[in-house]
């Protein structure tokens, strides 16, 4: 596997994100706490070949979110996201 193969996008984390958030997170807009760049999560860069899933900003490569599946729990760290915007179902 070369480094390109290790780099995916938010679509790759969609299944895990759907279990965590109970809605489709790939369309959620996320703003990076480090650089202010905002993207739909589906477009963010995802590293999923690790002890956990790391979602990084397309602008600055800073960490937006981290997830780790620990036994039957999912640990979520979203400090790297300044905000997350979702579409209301109304």
């Amino acid at each position, binding site marked *: *596997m070369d480094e*390109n*193969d*290790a*780099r*995916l*996008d*938010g*679509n*790759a984390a*969609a*299944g895990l*994100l*759907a*279990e965590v958030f*109970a*809605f*489709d997170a*790939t*369309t*959620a*807009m996320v703003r990076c706490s480090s650089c202010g760049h905002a993207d*739909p*999560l*589906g*477009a963010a860069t995802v590293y*999923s*070949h690790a002890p956990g899933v790391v979602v990084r900003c397309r602008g600055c490569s800073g960490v937006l979110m981290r997830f780790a599946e620990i036994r039957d729990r999912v640990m979520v760290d979203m400090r790297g996201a300044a905000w997350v*915007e*979702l*579409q*209301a*179902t*109304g």
Partner: protein
Amino acid sequence: MSSATGATERRIVGWQPATVREVIRETPSATTLILDVPGWRGHRAGQHADIRLTAEDGYQAQRSYSIASAPEDGYPSITVERLDDGEVSPYLVDDAQPGDALEIRGPVGGWFVWETSDGGPLMLVAGGSGVVPLRSILRHRALAGSDAPARLLLSARAPESVIYRDELAGADTTITYTRSAPDGWTGYARRVDRDMLAAVGFAPAERPRIYICGPTAFVEGVAADAVALGHHTDRIRTERFGATGG
């Protein structure tokens, strides 16, 4: 500020049992599995699902696959390409039989989707097995009777590795072979580049919706070329396949 096509679905998504209903060998290295999923509530073209296998000793492996079927088909199917030293793909491509039990989590992904209401023109660029979600989109377009103009540019290593070749053949499909071309081939025989995109695709002035899927390096290269040609990043959606261990 709106972020998505259509409403965000607030639905708990978890693992559900799935049974292999039918096995279709597409190429020497790719197989489509049609799945029976009780309670399957449908999907949108372009979405994918996670598949989990459990061995007798309890060992589990999961992988993500694009859904190959159209929403109108009423069932999910996946098309898997065998990675030679993979753990899951050789099983799904070569061993899976009707009646085999899997688990599915999904459908997921609301960003890399197309619905007829999104309109066109539609420009689809596939690298290898990246054609799977694009086939779902084209199949949906056909079954829903959409007249949105659509063009597919498909990069494949060799003729025998083209998945859905007969189904996708037509004036709006362009194939480029990167390793070996058929005898007498007069079409493209090189990696997708900016000139090819310009020649085959819609002009930026037509504001096509562009969907690019395949290995990460392919997707990033094509996306950069599309932007360089003048397409706006907001019109480009990408899905990168990785070598997820096979």
